[in-house]
Structures are given as structure tokens and as C-alpha cells.
């Protein structure tokens, strides 16, 4: 692995000189990409670099840069990495191009479900899916004779047993960090209860029984969580798992491989991936995808080259070499035990994250407003009403709700 990345770094630096490796063609058009910086994107952009004349920016703040960079003419990046939520601003601004002709020309190996279609036009090519699903310590649960938890009530019951038996003080971990993470947890729960976020004219509709149920379940979970849960993000939960401090968490599929990383984890082979706990209607999770988009503001030759390079980036060689880095959308992907949780959640009817302009505002309002309920400053109805008010103010300012 080390040798390979060294070689790839070499390939990137020599790219201009035409030293390329496992790429089917030699790229002679200078290309740049901007995407998020997690493991899967590193693997994909490294594989793109094999074609030469390509440089990648992996940037955690990509979503702040992308809309402006793609609005420039010519665009500052030809290839962009997005998820279903970060696609929205690019789509709204019309700065990414439909690629149906290119799919027809080069995309014979693409799976049909990789094509992200908006209004009948292919606007993005997905490479992987991600979802939060239940991970649990099979050894701990088996010792106490607990069945695999199917719903959040099961999770709570299991947590109570584990705590009672004195195995762990705080058996549950969750990404409750104030802001995006906490908002996401509510979105999961609320969709699991079958809730709808918006009514007519983008008006908010979360102050209802499903909303209260979602909140109450979140509060019930915090009893079994480390009291500092409002600062706990995905990495923190992952570490809690690796250090054997927690027994259950609804965590991202992309974090599954870390549980078996011998260098970091003390629980190798002891964590089982299962479907996300069921809400009343659907699994309490949302399905996300990550994929590539192509700028409107570039020449057709550039688009042609960019598309081919991007396909090289997510080809079967890359997927085989990085099988466990993500749940890849590729015929070459062998879904191992690590992907079982995400697959089972999808099978049980997990919904896609309802990305849209209003949803962006709602997610922020949720992330900022929920803590007041969990800390006990407000009751459930007041919390939800305040979040709706906060959303309405911001949505009016953004022009999404007419005055």
C-alpha cells in the first residue's frame, strides 16, 4: 500500500512529463478537480492522476469554494466531487453540464444506477453510497444473551442490560455534535418515523407527533451516552468504538473499515454491521451518494478528457485495490461484511437524503436548535416551534418563502 501511494505520488509529479501508469489513454489536456478529502476521494483522484496532466484538490472546505469556482468562466476546476446535498447549489446555478452524450460515448461500463438524473438529464456520475447504520459489539451482546437490535427500543433495552451488567458505563455512541451532525441525527429519526419536512410553498412542517417522537428517542439515547455527547462527531464515535468504550452506534458505513484497522482498533473482528434501527415506518437513516460533476464553463474537448479521466478514476482496478474504503457502485465491488449494514438498511427501505435548497436551511436550523431540548432548556414542542421559526426567517431571507 505504502509503495503504491509512493509510486502514485511519483506519477502525479511526473504527470506533465507523460509518465502515467494504469490508465487506458494518455491525457494531454490539463485538468483539475475539487472534492472532499476523505479516503474514497483520495483513492479515486489518485487513480485519475495515473492518466497524467491532472491535479486534485482534496479539501474539507470544498463546499464553500465549489459554487464560486465553478461559476468562473472558464471554470477553475473541470471536475468536481459532490454528494447529494452539495450538488444542489451547482445545479441551481447551472454551472455543471449534462453528460448524456459522453455517457453514450464512453460509459459502457457504468451501472445504470450510477447515473444521477435530474429532469431526464444525467448531471452527475455517482461512485459510492454512504449511510449511517447500526454497528454493535457482537461479543458484548452475545455474552449477555442479547439479540441483534432491530429498533431503537431494542437498542435502549440492550444498553440498559449492558449498563446493568457493569460491562460499560455508556454503551451507546452517536454523532450528536451540535451543528450538522446533530441535525443529521434528527433527519434520520424523523424520516424513520415517516415525517415530512416541508409543506406547500416550502413552509416547515416538523412540529408534529413524529417530530416529538424523534426528539424523545434522541433524549432517551443520551441517558446511555457519554455526557459530553454534544461535542461528539464521527471521528470521536469511531475512536470510542476502537477503544472499546461503547457497544452500539448508528455510524457511517465509510467508518466501518476503521473498526478492523489493527493499528488503531482494539476491537478487530468484534464489531458487526447491521441495518439501521427501524423507526415506526422506515429505517432511521438516510442514503447519501458521492460522485463527480463536470463544469459548464469549459470547452467540449476539455469535457471529453475530463469525463474519460473521471471514469478511469472509478474504474474496476481502483475499486479492487480499495474495496473496503467505501460502498462502491461498481460491478467489481465485492460487498463484504463491512457493507452488510448499509445494504441491509437499503433493503429495509431507507430513504435518500432529501437534499434541496430549503433542506439546507432546515438542516442548519435543526443543528443549531436541537441542543436546547437535549440540555433541558426547552420542551419538545417549543424546540420544534423555535426551529420552524428560525427556518422561516432564514428561508424568507433566502427568497424561498414568499413574504
Amino acid at each position, binding site marked *: 500500500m505504502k509503495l503504491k501511494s509512493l509510486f502514485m505520488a511519483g506519477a502525479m509529479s511526473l504527470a506533465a512529463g507523460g509518465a502515467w501508469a494504469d490508465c487506458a489513454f494518455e491525457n494531454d489536456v490539463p485538468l483539475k478537480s475539487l472534492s472532499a478529502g476523505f479516503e474514497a476521494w483520495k483513492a479515486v483522484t489518485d487513480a485519475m492522476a495515473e492518466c497524467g496532466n491532472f491535479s486534485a484538490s482534496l479539501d474539507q472546505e470544498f463546499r464553500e469554494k465549489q459554487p464560486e469556482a465553478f461559476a468562473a468562466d472558464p471554470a477553475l476546476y473541470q471536475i468536481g466531487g459532490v454528494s447529494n446535498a452539495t450538488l444542489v447549489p451547482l445545479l441551481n446555478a447551472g454551472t455543471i453540464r449534462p453528460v448524456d452524450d459522453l455517457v453514450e460515448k464512453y460509459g459502457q461500463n457504468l451501472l445504470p444506477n450510477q447515473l444521477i*438524473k435530474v429532469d431526464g438529464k444525467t448531471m452527475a456520475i455517482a461512485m459510492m453510497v454512504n449511510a449511517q447504520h447500526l454497528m454493535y459489539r457482537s461479543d458484548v451482546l452475545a455474552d449477555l444473551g442479547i439479540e441483534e437490535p432491530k429498533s431503537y427500543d431494542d437498542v435502549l433495552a440492550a444498553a440498559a442490560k449492558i449498563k446493568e451488567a457493569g460491562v460499560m458505563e455508556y454503551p451507546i455512541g452517536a454523532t450528536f455534535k451540535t451543528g450538522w451532525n446533530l441535525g443529521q441525527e434528527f433527519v434520520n429519526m424523523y424520516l424513520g418515523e415517516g415525517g415530512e419536512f416541508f409543506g406547500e410553498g416550502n413552509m416547515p412542517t416538523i412540529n408534529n407527533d413524529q417530530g416529538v417522537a424523534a426528539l424523545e428517542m434522541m433524549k432517551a439515547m443520551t441517558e446511555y451516552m457519554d455526557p*459530553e455527547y454534544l461535542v461528539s462527531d464521527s471521528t470521536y464515535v469511531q475512536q470510542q468504538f476502537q477503544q472499546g468504550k461503547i457497544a452500539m452506534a448508528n455510524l457511517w458505513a465509510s467508518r466501518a473499515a476503521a473498526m478492523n484497522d489493527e493499528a488503531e482498533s482494539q476491537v478487530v473482528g468484534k464489531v458487526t454491521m447491521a441495518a439501521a434501527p427501524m423507526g415506526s415506518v422506515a429505517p432511521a437513516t438516510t442514503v447519501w451518494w458521492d460522485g463527480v460533476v463536470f463544469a459548464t464553463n469549459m470547452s467540449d474537448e476539455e469535457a471529453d478528457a475530463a469525463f474519460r479521466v473521471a471514469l478511469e478514476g472509478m474504474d474496476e482496478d481502483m475499486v479492487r485495490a480499495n474495496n473496503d474504503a467505501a460502498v462502491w457502485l461498481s460491478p467489481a465491488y465485492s460487498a463484504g461484511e463491512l457493507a452488510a449494514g448499509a*445494504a441491509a438498511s437499503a433493503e429495509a427501505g431507507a430513504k435518500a437524503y432529501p437534499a434541496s435548497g430549503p433542506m439546507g436551511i432546515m438542516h442548519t436550523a435543526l443543528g*443549531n436548535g436541537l441542543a436546547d431540548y437535549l*440540555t433541558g432548556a426547552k420542551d419538545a414542542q417549543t424546540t420544534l416551534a423555535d426551529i420552524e421559526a428560525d427556518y422561516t426567517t432564514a428561508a424568507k431571507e433566502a427568497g424561498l418563502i414568499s413574504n
Partner: protein
Amino acid sequence: MNFRTFAAFVGPSVFMMLLFIAYPLISVFMQSFYITQPIYETVEIETCTPGFLTQTCITEQVSQPKLDEHGEIITQTEYVGLQSYRNVLEPERAWRAISNGEWNVLSTINFWKALRFTLTFTLITLPLVIGCGLGISVLINNAARAIRGPVIFVSLLPFIITPVIGVLSINWLFRGDGILTAMLETWLNRDIALFAQAWTIEILMMVYRVWHVAPFAAIVFYAGLQTVNQDSLESAVIDGATRWQRMKYIVIPHLMPLIIFVSMIHLMDSYRVFEEIVGFSSQGYVISLQWLTYDFLVPDQAGNRSISRASASAMLTMIGVVILLIFPLRRTWRDHKGGH
């Protein structure tokens, strides 16, 4: 100096100040009265996203901004008067809470929650910074000449550390099972979670701020101590004044202008408290006015951001600083007039 030479010397910096301070300020001031938004239309669109084996396609009504013939989003700018200020201050809600005497309700409204913390933070750290600064400067002044250099260097270290890094180190020392929390836990023999309630976080923030700023106060006071009239000190000793009396009647009055100066700088700085919030990721419990402005400015995933409310909140922060500075400024002004 004749006017020409004066103008030639001052001109460039006046120009720079106009360009980089006055212009942005006026621009923010104007923006707080306007709202710029895209014009949306509602369209029905079918969107297909990947499931695991199949695609999920849904048809739904979405709001889409209209584009002009160059492919740019059409926006409209509208004068809204004080609406953005009202959105930030939420006066009706705040007034309802005050008139019902529900302070806990008032403290859940973002602006008032932030104002409460910002003021407590500023006013509590101020005397502590002055006190610690004086203490350190006297200590340095009394240190033997041979070790004075190293002592100054060591006491200045906290001030040199980049604020965000400093905050993060404190965070990691105390977070979860951080070294210091673990030590406290074994010492007190009980479980401690310092990041699980507001007041412990606030204390940590204040401790950090005092630790960070006291050296600056100390070095300013130390410079002042070098000019204390030695004759007055000696005659005080002969008159039998204790160390404390000398400090109170000679040294502190002499340092008063510097104390006012340090207070003003500290008021301005700590009213804009920000690094502590981000570094401790304390948004769930504690927020500050500066953080509120920042939060309005950060775009969400769909690219929306609240420029108008951010401008209004920035203007309100500035007004707050000005109000706080009135007291020390009035005193300086009086002293200044009295001196002539």
C-alpha cells in the same frame, strides 16, 4: 511642519484606512438594510439517485432559481429597513420573555444568549487580566536582574501562542478522558465531564483567556513600573508605608493611564470572543456575538447564507463595543482636560 509635508506623510495611511476600514464598514452598514435574493420558480422535476441495486426516482415540486440568458442566477435586491435587525434581535419574543420574567426563555433566543455570555465573559475576565497582569509585572520587576530576561520570556509565552491552537490544547487536555480530566478524576475519585454543561465550559474559556492575555497586560505594566518616581517610593518607605500602601498610593495611581489603556484593548478584544467557541465546539451550550455573525455567514450545504443578518449582527457587535468603551474613554477625556 508645513501642511504639505504633513499631508504627504499622512496621506497614504489615511487612504489605506479609508479603503480597508471605512469602505468595508460602510458597505456592511448598507448591506444590513438590504436583502439580495434569487428569484425562485417552482417546477416539477424527476430526480433519480442510486439505491444499492436499482435507482430510486422521485418526482417532486422543487424551488429553482431562474437563470438569465448568460446562465447567471437572477437576483433582486430590496430595501427592507430594520427587518434584518429585527430578525437578529427578535424583539417581540425577547420582550415577551422579559415581561413574563422568564429569563431562561430569554436566554434561549440566540442573540440574547450570545449577548449574555459575551458580557459576562468580558466583564469577568477584565479585572482578572488587570490583576494578574499587575501581579506578573511586579514579580518581574522584583526578580533579580540576572534572571529577569528568562522570566520575561517565559511569562510572555502564552501570549505568543496562536489563539486557536491554545484553545484546542486546553480542549484536548480536558475533553473526555484528557490528561488533566483523568488526573482530576483520580484525585477527586469521581467521574468528571467538563464539556457536559455550560458553566464548566465558560470557566475553562475564561481561564484560557486570562492565561492568554495577562502577559500582554504584564509587559505594558512592567514598562510603566520603570518610570515610577523612586524618590516618592523612598520617602514613603521612610514614612513607614507598608509594601501594600506603596502599591496603592504611589504605583497604581502612576500606572492608571496604562490600566485604562489595557482595559480598553481588552474590552474590544474580548467582546469579539470567537476562538474559544470554535475551539471548544461549545455551540450547543455557549455562543458569542462574533460566533453568531460567523454562523450567519457560513453557507449551508445547499449554498444558502444570511448576508443581511450577518451584517446586522456585525453592526450590533460594533455598537456594543462602542457602548462598552464609553466609560473608560470618558475617564481619559476627563483626566486629559483636568491635566491642562
